[in-house]
């Protein structure tokens, strides 16, 4: 048996261990609700109607309420970026807002989000939330008045209650309070489990002086969309979300760039988190970026690069497998 034949035989022997539940997988694919997109011309009527509605609502919302701006690919009739508004001063009036966007900036709120695919928006739902959508995935940002004396734990409780109210089957599977962008952020991952599959979403909430903000990414309400579809998109949206940049922290991109300078070679960045660390440099609580990377090469090596979130300085690089730390 030749070497190539032996490799093939080894792979076939191993692959034979896999079971192929073809019917079940096909059933789940169908349950995802995704259909082949019909030829473009057939969609034009719907596209034009959608564009008209979004243009009107989006312009009003983006300007008067959020002072936001659309960035990225421009399509006919889409907004030009307006000057930033600050505080209660909204941005200058964009001409229109419609069509696919690849990024959105809210100057009032101080967030910027980069979308992994062509999201449409912003639109506004009945609660006043900004809604961006693409296929079966939605991304919403909602601002509400902050009840007097409300603390982040209260907001977390409210978010749990809201999810339970929406559907008894929509259970929080993971929840807690963490630090993101220098703010305490309540986080809930909820799952709606049905015979047809999973319907999941990520919700983040945080507080400012007068408002509470709720950011959500997940399947469209009422639709059961497999997490296999929603998850990767939500993951990318959340990774592309930068809030609190007004607090003097470096952003995600700068953190990734700093990590790249600390670990030479071709890198795959798999996770970027803003965290609190204690006594990294004997300074008590310190906000840091934790960037998880995989160095490509003959052998893949995983590292975590810890970066001072304020100065952008790399504090140390840790080999995940060995635990060995190096300080640049």
């Amino acid at each position: 048996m030749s070497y190539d034949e032996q490799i093939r035989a080894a792979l076939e022997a191993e692959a034979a261990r896999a079971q192929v539940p073809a019917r079940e997988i096909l059933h789940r694919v169908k349950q995802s609700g995704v259909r082949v997109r019909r030829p473009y011309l057939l969609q034009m009527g719907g596209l034009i109607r959608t564009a008209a509605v979004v243009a009107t609502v989006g312009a009003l919302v983006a300007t008067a309420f959020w002072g936001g701006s659309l960035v990225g690919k421009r399509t006919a009739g889409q907004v030009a970026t307006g000057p930033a508004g600050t505080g209660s001063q909204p941005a200058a009036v964009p001409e229109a807002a419609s069509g696919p966007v690849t990024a959105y900036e809210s100057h009032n709120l101080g967030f910027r989000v980069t979308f992994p695919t062509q999201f449409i928006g912003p639109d506004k739902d009945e609660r006043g939330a900004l809604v961006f959508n693409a296929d079966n995935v939605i991304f919403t940002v909602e601002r509400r008045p902050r009840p007097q004396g409300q603390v982040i734990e209260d907001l977390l409780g409210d978010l749990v209650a809201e999810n339970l109210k929406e559907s008894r089957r929509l259970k929080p599977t993971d929840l807690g309070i963490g630090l993101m962008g220098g703010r305490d952020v309540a986080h809930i991952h909820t799952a709606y489990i049905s015979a047809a599959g999973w319907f999941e979403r990520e919700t983040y909430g945080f507080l400012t002086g007068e408002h509470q903000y709720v950011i959500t990414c997940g399947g469209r309400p009422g639709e059961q969309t497999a997490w296999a579809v929603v998850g990767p998109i939500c993951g990318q949206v959340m990774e592309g979300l930068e809030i609190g940049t007004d607090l003097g922290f470096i952003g995600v991109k700068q953190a990734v760039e700093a990590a790249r300078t600390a670990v030479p070679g071709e890198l795959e960045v798999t996770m970027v988190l803003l965290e609190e660390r204690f006594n990294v440099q004997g300074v008590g609580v310190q906000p840091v970026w934790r960037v998880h990377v995989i160095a490509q090469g003959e052998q893949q090596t995983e590292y975590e690069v810890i970066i001072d979130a304020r100065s952008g300085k790399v504090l140390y690089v840790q080999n995940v497998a060995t635990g060995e730390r190096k300080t640049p």
Partner: protein
Amino acid sequence: MNEVFLIQQTQAGDEHAFEQLYHLYIGQAVRVAYLITRSQQAAEDAAQEAFIQVLRRIHTLRDPQSFRPWFYSILHNAARRTGRKGRGWSFFPFDLLNRGEPDSQAAAVEEIIEGRLEVEALRALIGQLPEIHREVIVLRYYAGLTEPEMAQALDLPPGTVKSRLHGARQRLLTQLKNQDSADGRVHSVLR
């Protein structure tokens, strides 16, 4: 039925054609994803995600002839994602206890046994390859993609694919050699 025809019909929105296309590819898709992710669950998830992506994006496929590498590109990305969710891959079980010295006196029998042992050893070693090497081995030797098709599927320059494949083969050979030296046996492929 002709695969190209099925692809064209699927692009036109024919769900029945999609199902036929699905059944043509699902077995291979789950097994390839299994070889990449090393997990039954992750493999099923990857295959499911890949076919959903096919539905979502097949209208963008200009040349139905290039469906195969296009599909493996989607599958490979899906497998990477689903495989990483779980992490902590379980390597191929490799029962070394059954790998004692062959006691047969017959050379032919010994050769057959050695051949099997080599295949078993390769199974284990492929499981320990870094992901970038395992992918090219799986796509080349199991999925049967050509190097240009692999380049398309992996979104890499052809030269990089060639060098990765060479590196993976060399790595396997070296490890086989080391293993056999430790066992006091000489590997037939290295003779």
